[in-house]
């Protein structure tokens, strides 16, 4: 700790910070551009100038850049000093020389850091009277718009893109006052984190294209704290709504999870919420007939009656639905009749992961904590594809070596370029074993591209090398043995080794291998971590809640043991081969589907109840780090579309149950339901802590979902009715559907719908909500952790699989997760569809040659359960005998299944 003096007042600050960080942490307003809390300082923009005094007698002082000056003990500075103020005003004036006067039509307007800083410094008149320089813009893909004339050359975009994410297709071009940030040629930005440019850029150069066509100012968007539903990482988001549509998703700062950044699937994958074909009213379908729209009462009546008539009702839950909805379904059908809606193999993996989290001895680190690990072993995950934001955190972990080296030479961690220069290619060791190349390979010390069983064998061998008590692997080749030893050595040399595995390859052996490594490390009392990747937003939660696998449910229906089924937010056709699902649904007399998407399952249901999506409902999810987090409805759909009948699934299910029992629909709040769920499922007891509860008030007020200057409210519904109804009530959350309520930053609260503080309209306003810049929310970071290792280690597992040997004429499938297009709901969003690469079949070149096929040829992949035609892609890293197919195309194709691959007949079309 250091004591510094700012404008005559003394403060205690962290001496590892620079003065800018220190001042912002103290809540002092000091403008800046090139500095970013996650990316450190480079001293380029000169906006953060302050006057520094040599000692107590120095009255003159000299300008220094706060971001490049350590907050050393005894430092005396002034922010308010005239020369510093004048200089900062001049810096803005220079930055604005070429900046267009296009705020009224600029998509950054209203949440623009440049606007904020311009106002803060007081610049308002352009004295520059000469011609402006102009640039041409580029097409950068479906996500990001480009308007280079607005650039103020802070270099943040390239620093984020290249240094932070490792992307290499965005650069700074030109020199002098003619600098251009873009691609070397037009085209889609390749980084899956490109979307963060919209927040990293302090002005409107990079904007959200998915928002552009239906653009709304930040102050006219209604926000709620939400949780990304597009994978299991659990990033916190701030979706913004106008006119009953989600217009954009912004990062919501969480000090332990996503902090400043999201992946592009999460940011741009929300389009499914706005789809025109979404079911918005109950539908009734006679066998093979056309659907008929029902009113709610009739729908409930018919549904209740069908259920009460049924002999046995099966409930099929969903890992993409909230815990409350799953719990309510379980209540409706009874535990004995409840299925998780997850296919057997995946569920077995989930169960194993849950067990390993308990008994493998290593805790699950948070994303932030991952960045503090200093050796990483990844077994069987392509993190950028399966849990992108987690992959980005792993990247920072590996690069953490830079700061460690810099510290040895007294280079502060914030001196970003200097740290990179000193460290060059130095990295903490990382090892990745996966069937094919992954994007993180470039950072790894060594990679192994093998079949899942061989990856498991490597894992077992590593465990054995660390702890001889772990079973040895017989018949390992020399190279793998040496690799295992090197990995063991690196993990043991680390202060904080991290083991990452997961369910992507659906291999229990692989998970057990990871478990053995974790146990072996835990035996050494290292502060290690074990991260196990799950697939969907609530996979972890539903596994904790329990239930039988999907196959069981289908069998019960198909075999006539049950004659009715209620399917919760789950397209069964995405999970198991269509025929099998169809047979089971046909056999069931009654199929009731709840969903917010018009899926094949919905179309097969007798009764469809239109569920609210994450944007219109509240509930709890459990992320892969075992963090239970509450998401809150962003808007009330009926306010603007009175004809809609969307309700959270849990509410539909409550009503259905009441109707079945012929009683009135009870008035149960979400908090009560969450408590009931926690009581019923001891593993979920902690979820009641996930939300501060609907009763929460700040300064006696509910929290406003709408920013203070939300405009046009009286006109929003004018096409329906000129008299303005009161905002809808919201008994389930501490928020109002209006701008009436608390919207400030100074009273700590942990559920923040949108970041705003006076003078800070841009996402940089988050600095006002944290205890220190880049720290934790002053009101506490949202969520409650549920997974923790139990005392004692389970014994090592010795189910070591034999090595994979290819068989002539047969391929083993590996299903490869895909960030874009590999997830059910986001792949229904137009932007994601536009961004998804064309699916291809990956074969080792030698294998492909045996088929006499050339790259791009169409090949048929066939298993006992499924068949698909795909274009061939030579994959030189893939081992012989494996066939890589993209996830999300044909649910019948499963990793490990034997497949036949043949050249497609000429007339066969593409992928479905």
């Amino acid at each position: 700790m250091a004591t510094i003096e700012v404008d005559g007042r003394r403060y205690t600050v962290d001496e590892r910070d620079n003065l800018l960080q220190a001042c912002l942490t103290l809540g002092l307003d000091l403008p800046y551009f090139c500095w970013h809390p996650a990316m450190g300082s480079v001293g380029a923009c000169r906006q953060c100038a302050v006057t520094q005094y040599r000692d107590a007698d120095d009255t003159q002082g000299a300008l220094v850049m706060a971001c490049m000056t350590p907050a050393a003990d005894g430092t005396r500075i002034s922010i308010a000093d005239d020369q510093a103020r004048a200089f900062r005003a001049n810096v803005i004036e220079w930055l604005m020389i070429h900046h267009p006067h296009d705020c009224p039509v600029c998509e950054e307007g209203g949440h623009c850091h440049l606007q904020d800083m311009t106002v803060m410094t007081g610049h308002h008149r352009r004295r520059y009277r000469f011609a402006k320089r102009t640039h041409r813009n580029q097409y950068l893909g479906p996500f990001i718009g480009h308007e280079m004339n607005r650039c103020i050359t802070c270099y943040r975009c390239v620093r984020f893109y290249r240094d932070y994410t490792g992307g290499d297709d965005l650069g700074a071009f030109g020199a002098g006052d003619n600098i251009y940030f873009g691609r070397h040629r037009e085209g889609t930005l390749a980084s899956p984190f490109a979307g963060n440019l919209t927040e990293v850029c302090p002005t409107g150069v990079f904007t959200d294209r998915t928002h552009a066509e239906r653009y709304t100012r930040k102050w006219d968007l209604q926000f709620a704290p939400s949780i990304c539903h597009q994978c299991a990482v659990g990033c916190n988001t701030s979706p913004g709504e106008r006119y009953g549509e989600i217009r954009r998703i912004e990062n919501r700062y969480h000090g332990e999870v996503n902090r400043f950044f999201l992946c592009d699937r999460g940011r741009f994958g929300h389009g499914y919420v706005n789809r025109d074909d979404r079911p918005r009213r109950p539908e009734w379908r006679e066998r093979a007939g056309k659907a008929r729209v029902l009113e709610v009462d009739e729908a409930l009546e018919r549904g209740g009656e069908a259920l009460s008539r049924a002999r046995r009702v099966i409930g099929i839950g969903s890992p993409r639905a909230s815990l409350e909805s799953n719990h309510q379904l379980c209540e409706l059908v009874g535990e004995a009749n409840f299925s998780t809606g997850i296919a057997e193999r995946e569920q077995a993996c989930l169960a194993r992961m849950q067990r390993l989290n308990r008994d493998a001895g290593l805790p699950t680190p948070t994303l932030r904590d991952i960045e503090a690990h200093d050796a990483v072993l990844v077994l069987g995950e392509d993190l950028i594809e399966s849990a992108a934001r987690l992959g980005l955190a792993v990247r920072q972990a590996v690069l953490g070596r830079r700061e460690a080296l810099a510290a040895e030479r007294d280079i502060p961690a914030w001196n970003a370029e200097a740290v990179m220069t000193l460290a060059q290619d130095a990295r903490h060791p990382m090892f990745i074993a996966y069937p094919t190349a992954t994007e993180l390979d470039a950072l790894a010390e060594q990679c192994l591209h093998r079949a899942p069983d061989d990856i498991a064998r490597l894992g077992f061998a590593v465990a054995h090398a660390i702890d001889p008590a772990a079973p040895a692997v017989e018949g390992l080749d020399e190279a793998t043995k040496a690799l295992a030893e090197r990995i063991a050595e690196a993990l043991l040399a680390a202060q904080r080794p991290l083991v990452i595995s997961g369910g992507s390859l659906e291999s229990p052996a692989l998970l057990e291998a990871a478990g053995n490594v974790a146990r072996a490390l835990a035996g050494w009392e290292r502060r290690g971590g074990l991260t196990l990747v799950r697939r969907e937003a609530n996979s972890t939660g539903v596994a904790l809640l329990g239930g039988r696998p999907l196959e069981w449910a289908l069998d019960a229906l198909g075999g006539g043991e049950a004659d009715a089924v209620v399917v919760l937010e789950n397209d069964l056709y995405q999970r198991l081969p269509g025929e099998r699902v169809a047979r089971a649904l046909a056999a069931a007399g009654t199929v009731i589907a709840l969903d917010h998407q018009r899926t094949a399952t919905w179309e097969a249901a007798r009764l469809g109840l239109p569920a609210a999506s994450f944007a219109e409902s509240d509930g709890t999810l459990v992320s892969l780090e075992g963090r239970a987090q509450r998401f809150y409805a962003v808007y009330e759909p009926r306010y603007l579309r009175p004809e809609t009948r969307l309700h959270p699934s849990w509410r539909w299910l409550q009503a259905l149950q009441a109707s079945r029992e012929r009683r009135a629909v009870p008035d149960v709040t979400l908090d009560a339901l969450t408590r009931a769920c926690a009581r019923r499922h001891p593993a979920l007891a902690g979820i009641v802590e996930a939300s501060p509860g609907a009763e929460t008030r700040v300064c006696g007020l509910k929290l406003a979902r709408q920013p203070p200057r939300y405009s046009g409210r009286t006109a929003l519904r004018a096409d329906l009715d000129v008299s303005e109804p009161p905002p809808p009530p919201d008994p389930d959350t501490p928020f109002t559907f209006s701008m009436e309520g608390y919207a400030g930053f100074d009273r700590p609260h942990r559920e923040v719908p949108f970041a705003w503080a006076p003078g800070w309209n841009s996402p940089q306003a988050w600095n006002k909500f944290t205890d220190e810049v880049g720290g934790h929310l002053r009101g506490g970071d949202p969520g409650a952790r549920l997974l923790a290792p139990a005392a004692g280690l389970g014994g090592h597992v010795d189910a070591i699989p034999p090595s994979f040997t290819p068989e002539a004429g047969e391929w083993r499938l590996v299903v490869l997760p895909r960030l874009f297009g590999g997830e059910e709901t986001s792949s229904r969003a137009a932007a994601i569809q536009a961004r998804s690469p064309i699916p291809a079949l990956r074969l080792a070149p030698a294998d492909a040659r045996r088929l006499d096929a050339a790259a791009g040829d169409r090949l048929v992949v066939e298993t006992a359960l499924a068949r698909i035609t795909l274009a061939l892609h030579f994959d030189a890293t893939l081992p012989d005998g494996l066939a890589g197919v993209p996830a999300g195309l044909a649910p019948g194709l499963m990793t490990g299944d034997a497949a036949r691959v043949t050249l497609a007949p000429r007339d066969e079309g593409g992928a479905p």
Partner: protein
Amino acid sequence: MTATRYRSRLHQAAPERRLETHPLTWWLHDDGRRVDLDDYVAKDGYGVVRQVLGREAPDDVTETLKAANIRGRGGGGFSAGVKWSLTLKGEGMPRGYLVCNADEMEPGTFKDRLLLEQVPHLLLEGMILGGYANASCYGYIFLRGEYVAAARALDQAIEEARAAGWLGRDIAGSGYDFDIALHTGAGRYICGEETALINSLEGQRANPRAKPPFPGQSGAWGKPTVVNNVETLCNVPAALRFGADWYQGLSGERSGDGGTKLYGVSGRVRRPGLWELPMGTPAGELLDRAGGLRDGRALKAWLPGGGSTGFLLQEHLDLALDFDTLGEAGSRLGTGLLTLVAEDQSLVALVRNLEEFFARESCGWCTPCRDGLPWAAELLRSLERGEGQPGDIERLEALAADQGPGKTFCAHAPGAAMPLASAIHYFRDEFERGIAGASEEVG
């Protein structure tokens, strides 16, 4: 008439030059031929390498140099010995690089060219000694791309030196390994700034780097790196051969800076060119040597050491041309090559030309320089056209003040500010005549 191929020339013929008084140029042939290895060795070239390597401890070499106080001839005037003593080396430290700054692009500067083209071995010898003192593993000569003849001369010299064992493994049986590569640039004045130069050497955009850490702590590829100017390094062999006292004695009473300086004069003078003279020689003496201004014009102003130094006047001609004296006079010695402005030449136009240069050559990293200098150039253009507006001069002064040291990321913009501020200071009326309507009023 036939246009002449340009060739660097020294205005001191052989008889005038002695090793003891002209350690840089004593080696030169009068006809400007390259001093090849045989010529060089014939005059005991590389003798200092033999004298020092393996015989004197690197730290002692640095001590001698510190005492000699060779101040950086790249324009900064920082003591080479002090720089070397601050370079990280020894136990646990990776061996780094010695980089010769041969980027010479400062407007009005043409001294390194002479040494590079005509005595490349002197530079190589200086580099070997510098490499030895700093425990460097490798040397680079960062040469501006336009110096084609110098590149040829250096290539040949490096070949010769390598063949003769002055470069490579176990130099002169000392156990010290050192080799040198020539790296040629691709334009841009900013490459001469030492940290930008390192970035450029690494094949990056030539943005400067933050200091600290200084190159001696973390330079090329993060290794300790010494960057010295050509002339600085060429001073090293003699300073080590004859010692610090001799070196200090070279400038005698004239200056405390020590040594000789390759001074030069350009502009509309009768005999522009180069002279090796004791450090601290007064500007007037140089002007005399250059034969005064052409056509008998009077002197209006002069720049003492390149475009990034401040203007001085006739009355400053008897100042000693050394770092401290000119610093006290509000300018800088810079590279020590004088640019003279005659009475009938427009200072507004010259400053406009300089600011256009600095604006064009800004790397574009920091705001005051990138966006402030082009604005200054615009204002100067309008003053030059007589279209200035009231307030423009104050704007220019403010712009110059905002490019001061510490306010910008590197010394490029402060260099641009110096001639601008000093010109307005001394010749304000000339600028005022550029304000629209001003001439009539004065009129």
